[in-house]
């Protein structure tokens, strides 16, 4: 009998390992895809087709000199990169990667989620909004004007879009009747993918999560052309790499959430894949389906980044407060009316 704790530790190790690998390769994918879109080849020197590029990048970051500017607030300056990477890694805990794994020799099937919290989505919002502290602290502690502007922009942007993000998913949970992400996925497996019943929620959630993860067209905290490097201007070496990792991990989490909330999570809408797995093979296939869907969304993120130019700052704020928040409120209202009418 393997203790439950050990199973959990193994699960955590697997999830973090897979996630960080995907994050590393997303960086390569970003460079490759942007190159293809611009009729270039992209990195192709390290290993076959450039596939070892992330390893080379990682090695470079490890060996680079870590410059600590003399007039920074050293405690916050060191704390900030950690704060930006950790929330992204924690939020993935409540996202179901698969249905369940039935492993011979274990009494209970292993759940495809690390923490099966009943308040799953609240946990996600609570933790992921901590990510802004990393950026704000980095901007403040750097004691330099561009990082400071980046930090200010970031806080304004993330607070505005946190509201849209939270409100946009309310109809989903009104329809499903549970805040637990595992239940949301099972509901979609049995009924219908929520993107079909809640298209407006889905759209607003996707756009807001672009703003939440600071990706183009809403990458104001970084905005290379305007703010040099934004909040991470003063950072170098591994600290910079952690910001980078945090950004891509946040992208991964946002993609995982989109998949979980609107695109059926680990399920596919036909026979062996639309119910919790009864065999080990199907269980593994569910995880594969989930990861494939997440990769599609990561591609979508990259695709959008290399297509749409950055918004103007007031446009971003106007879009958030004047368009999305009224729309989400209207959406909640309409959804409530429809659900009430259907219940009668």
């Amino acid at each position: 009998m393997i203790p439950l704790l050990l199973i959990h530790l193994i699960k955590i190790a697997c999830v973090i390992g897979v996630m960080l690998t995907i994050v590393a390769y997303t960086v390569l994918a970003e460079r490759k895809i942007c190159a293809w879109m611009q009729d270039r080849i992209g990195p192709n020197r390290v290993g076959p087709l450039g596939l070892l590029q992330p390893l080379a990048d990682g090695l470079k970051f490890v060996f680079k000199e870590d410059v600590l500017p003399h007039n920074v607030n050293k405690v916050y300056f060191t704390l900030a990169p950690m704060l930006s990477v950790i929330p992204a890694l924690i939020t993935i805990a409540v996202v179901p990667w698969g249905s369940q794994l039935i492993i011979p020799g274990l009494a209970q099937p292993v759940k495809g989620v690390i923490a099966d919290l009943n308040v799953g989505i609240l946990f996600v919002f609570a933790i992921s909004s901590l990510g802004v502290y990393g950026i704000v602290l980095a901007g403040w502690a750097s004691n330099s004007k561009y990082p400071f502007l980046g930090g200010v922009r970031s806080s304004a942007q993330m607070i505005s879009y946190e509201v849209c993000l939270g409100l946009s998913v309310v109809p989903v949970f009104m329809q499903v009747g549970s805040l637990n992400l595992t239940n949301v996925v099972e509901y979609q497996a049995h009924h219908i993918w929520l993107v079909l019943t809640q298209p407006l929620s889905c759209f607003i959630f996707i756009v807001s999560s672009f703003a939440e993860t600071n990706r183009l067209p809403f990458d104001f905290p970084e905005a290379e052309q305007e703010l040099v490097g934004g909040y991470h201007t003063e950072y170098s070496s591994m600290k910079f790499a952690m910001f980078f990792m945090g950004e891509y991990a946040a992208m991964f989490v946002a993609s995982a959430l989109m998949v979980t909330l609107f695109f059926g999570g680990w399920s596919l809408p036909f026979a062996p894949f639309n119910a919790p797995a009864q065999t080990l093979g199907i269980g593994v296939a569910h995880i594969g389906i989930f990861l494939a869907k997440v990769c599609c969304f990561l591609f979508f993120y990259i695709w959008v980044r290399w297509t749409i130019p950055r918004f103007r700052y007031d446009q971003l704020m106007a879009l958030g407060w004047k368009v999305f928040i009224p729309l989400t409120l209207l959406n909640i209202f309409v959804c409530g009316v429809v659900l009430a009418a259907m219940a009668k």
Partner: protein
Amino acid sequence: MQVKRPKLTILERTYLPQILHGLWLTLKHIPRRKFTRRYPEEKPPLYGAYRGAPTLVKDPEGRVKCVSCQLCEFVCPPKAIRITPTARPDDAPDANVEKEPQDFVIDMLRCIYCGYCEEVCPEEAIFLKQDFAIAGYTREELQFHKEKLLELGGVQPDSIWKWKFKGAPPPDAPDAPKRVAK
């Protein structure tokens, strides 16, 4: 001039059609032919008049064409060429050619690839060939001496009368072979 401000429809004001069009545009580019040249493996195509590194050439019989007239040295704008002339020994075959370079140095760090040396050379002994990636670890390495220049230059397939006759060729000499462009 009056700037036109067309009234946008509601659909256009959401920007969504434009964004979708943009996404389609970038997607179309992914499978397209790439313009990148994988440089060290794929060299760029160079054409006849390309001016690369200046080199010394030999004639088909393996003789150095240069006669150390030093015109190239004089014409060279950045003074990259240094020639040490020497007399040909009297008993050498083809002693009707009086001078030859003992050493011929081109400083590739100074050379500006203008091609004046090639233009000015009365013997067609110096040619700008197509080597463009001249690199080295030390300054000395980039002082190309006579042997190196001859090696780079190779053989220029045309013959010159100077080896056979002193002065103008006799009236009964066969016509000079046509010169072949490099």
